[in-house]
């Protein structure tokens, strides 16, 4: 079966000749997979995500979306077909919640009543009462509510692929756990293919079907959480994957009588 997303030997060198941001990355993301890219800051995981919806163009290698060379697709149409959500969210401050959520359908030329119906449906889906939130401006939302709106906006045009860049990173821990669990359920229910970027291994282990560990622009290891736990490729992966367990142990020691 063709993978939904495939990267084949993709590199991106930033101008100025410094170290390549991404070097010869190859990945297959099968349809319906919850795929997590993890690594430390500056390892190239966000860059890799931006190469998928052509916010960035690779300097070598190719990106395939559902078997088609992404370079041959119109980048604007490509992005309208993918949900994109990132930590800063980037809600349009001059538009209401409903207008933010309905933006991609509007760009795609959906009729207004259909957009309105879809907007309410999505607000219900992300558990925001449409009657209460529809006409609010982003400035009058809490951090968690904003990210829910961001999620609804990303899902609006019924994308098959969701690209998420530390989407829950700025939220308080309770909201964050609640929202990530809700999203995982949505992923399964809607049959999405999700690529999520994070530096939080606990989040990765709890959400992912497949985890790819990145370091210095390269993929170090790809596998299921279980595979990574049982057979880490090197000491870096081992120390990374053991972080949650180690912290749990430290916690137990700290609170022990």
């Amino acid at each position, binding site marked *: 079966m063709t993978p939904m997303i495939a990267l084949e030997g993709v590199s991106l060198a930033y101008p100025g000749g410094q170290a390549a941001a991404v070097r010869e990355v190859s990945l297959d993301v099968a349809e319906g997979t919850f795929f997590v890219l993890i690594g430390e800051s500056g390892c190239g995981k966000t860059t890799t995500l931006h190469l998928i919806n052509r*916010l960035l163009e690779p300097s070598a290698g190719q990106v395939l979306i559902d078997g088609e060379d992404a370079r041959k697709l119109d980048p604007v149409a490509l992005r309208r077909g993918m949900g994109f959500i990132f930590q800063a969210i980037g809600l349009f401050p001059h538009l209401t919640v409903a207008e933010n959520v309905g933006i991609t359908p509007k760009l795609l030329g959906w009729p207004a009543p259909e957009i309105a119906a879809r907007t309410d449906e999505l607000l219900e889906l992300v558990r925001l009462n449409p009657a209460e939130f529809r006409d609010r401006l982003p400035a009058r939302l809490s951090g968690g509510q904003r990210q829910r709106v961001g999620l609804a906006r990303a899902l609006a045009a019924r994308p098959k692929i969701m690209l998420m860049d530390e989407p829950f990173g700025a939220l308080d821990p309770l909201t964050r756990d609640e929202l990530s669990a809700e999203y995982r359920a949505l992923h399964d229910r809607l049959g999405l293919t999700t690529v999520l970027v994070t530096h939080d291994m606990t989040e990765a282990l709890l959400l992912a079907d497949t985890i790819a560990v990145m370091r210095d622009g390269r993929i170090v290891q790809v596998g299921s959480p279980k595979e990574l736990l049982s057979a880490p490729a090197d000491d870096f992966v081992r120390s990374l994957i053991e972080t949650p367990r180690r912290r749990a142990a430290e916690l137990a020691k700290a609170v022990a009588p």
Partner: protein
Amino acid sequence: MIRVAWARLPEYLGQHVLISVSAIAIGFLISLPLAVAVSRIGWLRGPALAAASVVQTIPGLALLALFYPLLLALSVFTRHAFGFGFRALGFLPALLALTLYSMLPVLRNTVAALAGIDAAVLTAARGVGMTPRQSLWLVELPLAAPVIMAGLRTAAVWVIGTATLSTPVGQTSLGNYIFTGLQTENWVFVLFGCVAAALLALVIDRLLALAEDGFALRSRGRLLAAVAGLIIVVGASLAPLFGGEERPIVIGTKSFEEQYILGAVIGDKLDKAGFKTVRRDGLGSTVIFHALEAGDVDVYVDYSGTLWTTQMHRADMPGRKAVLGQLSAWLKTRGDRSVGTLGFENAYAFAMRRDKAKAMGIETLADLAAYAPRLKIGGDFEIFSRPEWAAVVKTYGLHFAAQRQYQANFMYSAVADGDVDVISAFSSDGRIAQYDLKLIGDPKQALPPYDAVLLVSPRHAGDAKLLAALKPLIGSIDLGTMQRANLMVDRSDDKKTPEQAAAWLARH
């Protein structure tokens, strides 16, 4: 005097609003896309902002004045190259200068506002699948709108203020009150013009502020109220301009009292003959002749010697009659028409205090030459750059210790108070008698005669009804009468308006 000022308000305000709004609108339509281009193309930013800033450093009056010769040259070129010219005076130079003036605030604010948009919002715009154009129209410009509006407000206030300076290039504006008032020392007029321009700027500023709030608070009501207010103010101001179908006769005047009085005399005659008239006041002495030839001015009074030297470029002095005869013939070849002489001369004549002249034994310019190196001379803004001055200097070998320039009003008190010893007076000026000045003789006839001649533009050169209405003025004003009329306006006690002096003149 207030009543006279009110009567002129519809025309002055209408013209002021017309020129300001046109300049602001065109400036906005140029600077907004330019700002977008600048924010997209990095290297454009420096040159564009620098150019706009340089324009801002040019004094408003100089910028306006600059466009007149520029357009005149261009018009001459197009007439030769393509067979048509255009009017280098009035609306066009004022429009171009004010448009340039209005650009910097919008340009600078828009560039800053676009640069200041949250990067996350721009990433999101791309991420949801907007094209660069959609990102601009749906996200960037709406977010920048309040700051852009603030720039537009600044531009509007600047332009409405600076538009008062478009009067000397022949565009009627509220500045007509100020310039006329300054020349005739009519402080009511000056104040009236200043207050009217300030009020207009204030009203437009408040309405644009309302629109700015509308954008910032996303309040459709405020936006609609602002737009409605602007339409009402601009519409009401412009309405009088579209009142009459018939093109009025334009009476031009130069910038001194005698001209204002004669303008009023002509206006009165034409009004009585059933013509609709408007005034273009305070035009420069060369500008007004070009305006006549271009059809911007239909009737005005010039002086034979002025045209002889500055327009015909003649240096010889064949005598009074010959000058008039050749002038009329020359005017005919250009399509203009001289209706005739009014009956008096307003000549350049050098004057000094009678006691001083007596002490030095000065009767003529030849006597003056011996004392000149120890004396200071005062003149108006034109004399020292005019051919007449060069002729006098050459003929009599005059060299003064110092030259000073004054507004004509202040020149007479300067010589009376002893700030200068000699002035270039005007023979019809009432203040020569008032200050008891002695006119210095010109035995070698270095100065040409300056008969007041009534001129009509090519457009009306064959207009029998107009010519018939003007005919009674020919030979009707002698020097003594003109001097007395001038003094009525010049003196500080029992001061009269040019209109009152004109009415007095009509009775004598």
